[in-house]
C-alpha cells in the first residue's frame, strides 16, 4: 500500500475527510496542548491535506493530545481530529515509531493492570520515573501521600487478576 493509500485508510477509519477542514485554526486556537505541540490539530489536518503521512506519524502532536475534544466541539465542520490522532498512534506503533516517555508510561500502566487488575498508582509513578529517568518528578508529594496513606505500597491484586491478564492477552492477539 502506498503512503497515500495508508493515509486515506486512516482518515476513513477516523471518519475524517481532508476537504472538510478549511484551516480556520479554531481547533488549534482552543487546544490546551497547542503550545507544546509541533503541529497542533490544524497543522495535523494540513499534513493530511498535503498527504504527508510521515509528518503525522513522527509528530509529537499525536502523543501529546489529551483527547479533551475541545477541537471537535468548536470545529465548524465537525472534523474529529482526536479520532484521526488515535488511528495515527496505532499506525505509528505498527511502524515502531514511538515517543519514548509515552511508550514507557503506557507499557508500565498496562503491566500494572496485568499484575494487579488495577492501576497501582505508586508503582506506576515509581517505575515510570525509573524507566523514563526522571527520578525527582512528583517525588516531593510522596511524604505527604505516605503520611496520609493516600498511596498504599501493598495494593492487593483483585481476584480476577489472571482473568484480566488473559483478557488483555486475547485483545492484543486480536489486534494482530
Amino acid at each position, binding site marked *: 500500500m502506498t503512503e497515500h493509500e495508508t493515509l486515506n485508510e486512516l482518515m476513513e477509519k477516523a471518519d475524517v475527510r481532508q476537504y472538510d477542514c478549511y484551516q480556520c485554526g479554531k481547533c488549534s486556537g482552543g487546544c490546551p*496542548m497547542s503550545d*507544546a505541540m509541533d503541529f497542533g490539530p490544524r497543522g495535523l489536518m494540513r499534513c493530511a491535506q498535503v498527504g504527508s503521512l510521515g509528518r503525522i506519524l513522527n509528530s509529537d502532536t499525536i502523543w501529546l493530545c489529551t483527547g*479533551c475534544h475541545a477541537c471537535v466541539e468548536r470545529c465548524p465542520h465537525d472534523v474529529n481530529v482526536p479520532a484521526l490522532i488515535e488511528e495515527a498512534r496505532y499506525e505509528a506503533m505498527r511502524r515502531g515509531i514511538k515517543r519514548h516517555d509515552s511508550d514507557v508510561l503506557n507499557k508500565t*500502566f498496562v503491566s500494572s493492570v496485568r499484575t494487579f*487488575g488495577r492501576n497501582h498508582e505508586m508503582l*506506576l509513578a515509581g517505575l515510570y520515573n525509573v524507566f523514563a529517568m526522571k527520578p525527582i518528578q512528583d517525588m516531593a508529594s510522596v511524604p505527604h501521600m505516605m503520611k496520609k496513606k493516600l498511596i498504599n505500597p501493598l495494593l492487593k491484586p483483585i481476584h480476577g487478576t489472571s*482473568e484480566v491478564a488473559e*483478557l488483555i492477552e486475547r*485483545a492484543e492477539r*486480536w489486534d494482530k
Partner: protein
Amino acid sequence: MKRYAYFPGCASESTAKSTTLANEFVFGALGIDLIEIEDWNCCGATSAHTLSDTVGLALPARPLAQAEEEWPDLDIVTGCASCYARLKVTNHRVRTDKEARFIVEKVLGKPYEAKREVLNFLDILSGEDERKAVENALLRRFKNLKVACYYGCLNVRPAELTGVEDRENPQAMDELAALTGAEPVDWGFKSECCGAAHQNDAAFETRPLAARIIENARACGADIILTACPMCQLNLEMRQSEYIRKREDKLRGKPSFPLFSMVLPPDPNETIPVLSITELLAIAMGAGGRRLELDAHFVPVGNVISKAFRDENESEVFI
C-alpha cells in the same frame, strides 16, 4: 431508593481517599444505593486505548458486562471522569458499531449488549428529585464562599456521548454547589482540560494546563475549586506549589529549581484549596472534617471552609 451499579475507579482506593469517604456520606444521606461491581478492574484510561483499540474496549467491557449480568436493570455510575469516558465510549461503541460489539464479545468470552447507561455523579445528582433530596439533607449552609466549579473535559465532552447541553459553560455542578449557599463564580475554565492524562509522560508540557486553570479561578475571585473527578482533583492540588513557585520565579526573572520549588511548602496566600463536589455537599450535610479526612488534601482546606459557614457556631463544631 434509587440504585446504581457502581464503578469506583482505581483512584478511589488511594489518592481520592477523602472524596471516597464523602461519596459514601452523601449517597448514604440521600438514600442512593451504590452497589459496587464485584471484583471490578481498571478501565485502562488512558494508556490502554492509546496502545490498542481492542484492549481499550476490552478492559472497560469486563466490569460493564459483569454489571449487566448481575444487575441487568441498573445504570452504571462512576465518580471519575476518565473512567466515565472509557466506560461510556465502550458502551456507545458496542451499541452502535456491530463490529466493535463482535470483537468485544469475542475477546470477553461472554455477551455484552450495553443495555444500560453509563452515568457520572453529576448526571445522577442533577435530577429534580435528587436536587430536592440534597436540599433536604443539608444541615448547614455556606456564606461568602466563592467556588469555581471545574467539570473537567471528559465529564462534558464529546457532546454526543455526554449529552451535556452547554459544553462551554456547564451548569450542573454550579447548581448543586449553589444549593449549599456557596456562590459559583463565572469563570473560564470549567471544561478546559487539566492535562491529568499526561502528567507523567509529558510533565513539562502539561503543567501549564493546570496552572492556567488555577490562575483563572483565582483571578475570577474563587475561594476554592470544586471538581467532579479524582484525577483532576489530584492534578490541580498536588502540584500547586510547583506551579506557583515556577510562576513566581518567572516573574522575578530567576531560574527555577524544580526540586527546591517542589519541597518548599506553598504560600497559603497563593494557593487555592481544591475539593470535590461531593466533599462540599458532605460538609454541608454535616460531615466533619475528620470524618472526611480533609487533612489528606495537599492544599489545606479546613481554614477556608470553617470561615465560610453561615452560622458562625458551625465553625467551632467543624473539625
